């Protein structure tokens, strides 16, 4: 499995797409933070916080919080990572080479998920680093003690990475089940929109548990309290486990 992750990174580092995604992530963040632009795709937007951030984005901390809201848009960019890591395997049928290299089906799915997780972590780390540097370049104060800011940003980075990865694991399941890269890519696009629309139309609060893209923003803005975070974590861990195991089971019984 480690070899497969290494092979995927070797391959990614030799494609333009990977560099382009990282570049776009940095540019998008820098522009948003510099021009104090805040917005995203979410179920329950903390409007007061958004107004506050837009009007008073005078500290680095406020810039990073604004960037967290903006990060939900990044999923459209991250689709490229999904295509590079696992989409190509299916569209170019190279999964045959991979699966006869001796790797088990479960290891294959896990290796792909972990590669995506690492990709997301790297991209979001760049994203927050850019937010931090841009804020300072714009002459803004830290807004809090630096160690506290770094700790807060680190936590946001980890939670954002994990919760976004859950949607990608579900998209992997869709890809294996459908065999269609288009359907799985559309799934990633539709997921937050469908959850947002569903929430608006039904007012079902539980939809926020599967609004994986915005959990980190919710924590950051205090709309998700620490006491109820376990519910979000539980739902995400269950979704992740189901998608990995179901993906491995499906691929085991699929004509490849």
């Amino acid at each position, binding site marked *: 499995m480690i*070899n*497969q992750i*290494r*092979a995927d990174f*070797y*391959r990614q580092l*030799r*494609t333009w797409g990977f560099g382009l995604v990282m570049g776009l992530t940095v540019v998008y963040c820098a522009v948003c933070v510099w021009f104090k632009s805040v917005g995203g795709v979410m179920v329950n937007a903390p409007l007061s916080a958004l107004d506050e951030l837009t009007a008073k984005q005078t500290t680095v901390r406020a810039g990073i919080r604004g960037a967290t809201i903006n990060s939900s848009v990044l999923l459209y960019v991250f689709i490229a990572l999904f295509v590079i890591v696992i989409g*190509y395997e299916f569209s*170019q*049928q*190279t999964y*045959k*080479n*991979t*699966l*006869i*290299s*001796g*790797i088990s089906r479960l290891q294959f799915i896990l290796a792909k998920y972990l590669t995506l997780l690492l990709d997301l972590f790297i991209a979001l780390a760049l994203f927050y680093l850019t937010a931090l540097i841009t804020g300072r370049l714009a002459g803004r104060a830290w807004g809090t003690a630096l160690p506290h800011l770094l700790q807060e940003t680190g936590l946001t980075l980890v939670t954002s990475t994990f919760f976004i990865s859950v949607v990608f694991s579900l998209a992997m399941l869709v890809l294996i089940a459908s065999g269609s890269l288009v359907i799985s890519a559309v799934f990633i696009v539709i997921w937050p929109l469908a959850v947002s629309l569903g929430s608006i139309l039904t007012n079902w609060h539980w939809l926020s548990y599967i609004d994986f893209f915005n959990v980190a923003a919710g924590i950051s803005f205090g709309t998700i309290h620490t006491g109820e975070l376990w519910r979000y974590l539980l739902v995400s861990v269950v979704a992740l486990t189901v998608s990995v195991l179901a993906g491995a089971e499906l691929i*085991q*019984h*699929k*004509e*490849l």
Partner: protein
Amino acid sequence: MEETVIQLRDVSKHFGHYQALSHVTMAVKRGDIYALIGENGAGKTTLMRLILGLSPTPSGEVMVLGEHAGHYRHALSRVGAIIEAPAAFSKLTVRQNLEVIAIQHGLNDPQAITDAIQFVGLTAKVRTQAKHLSLGQRQRLGLATAILAHPDLLILDEPINGLDPTGIVEFRTLLQRLNQEQQTTILISSHILTELYQVATQFGFLHHGTLIQTLSKPALDAANQAGLVVTVSDVNAAASLLDAQQIKQFKVLNERDLLVAAGQIEPAALNRLLVDHQLEVMSIAMKEGSLEDYYTDLIAHSQEGRA
């Protein structure tokens, strides 16, 4: 010691109502070059995919290098394969594609990649992206991919497709070298039977999903006897005459020709016999048996048997 590398017992497979394989039992021994022969849709690719675990086995038993399909642990890491079409990452170069395979197999020897490229004759294309390779070059890349980790078993589905005549000859030499120098067992399918005949040591004939015959090359040669093709003025009279003379192994080919199996009678004696009975002999020619003829006859008999 003669070790069984691939063992299939009573394997059947169907897709909906279509029976792709029916009760196939076969064994490939270490060191064999086993040729799978059959028409399109006979089940060759399906059988190879079952062996590689790319298709679930619904009934029967498939074992590779001592491990059961569906529960492979180490077996597949000792197998190289090209199935249907050689797959490669189109935007990576020849060398980069092989680097990916090397990393997947945990190989850390850059020389192994250079050797594989050299072995398949792609040295001049080492920095060419896979998408810019010709069909034949992609086949070579596929073979390099398959042999990179020095597999004990090589499974090649129609590997000669797209190769030019020179490439076919080179490919044949490559397979023989792999088999002889690295003791690689090879399971191969192709529609170019003349090539299969030249490389294979064992033959398996698939027809409509059924393995109708397996035999070794010596057995094939023995069964596929050469004969005398005789062109006469009256083929019915000639056939009656041969029958009366207790020459039983002959076959009427058409209105003018009949084939007398080799070893029945010498050409001169046959000519004398026919002429003595006022039959006009236009020609007598030696005919070498071929894999194509054997296959065609086998399929014809199989269909007669079904009818």
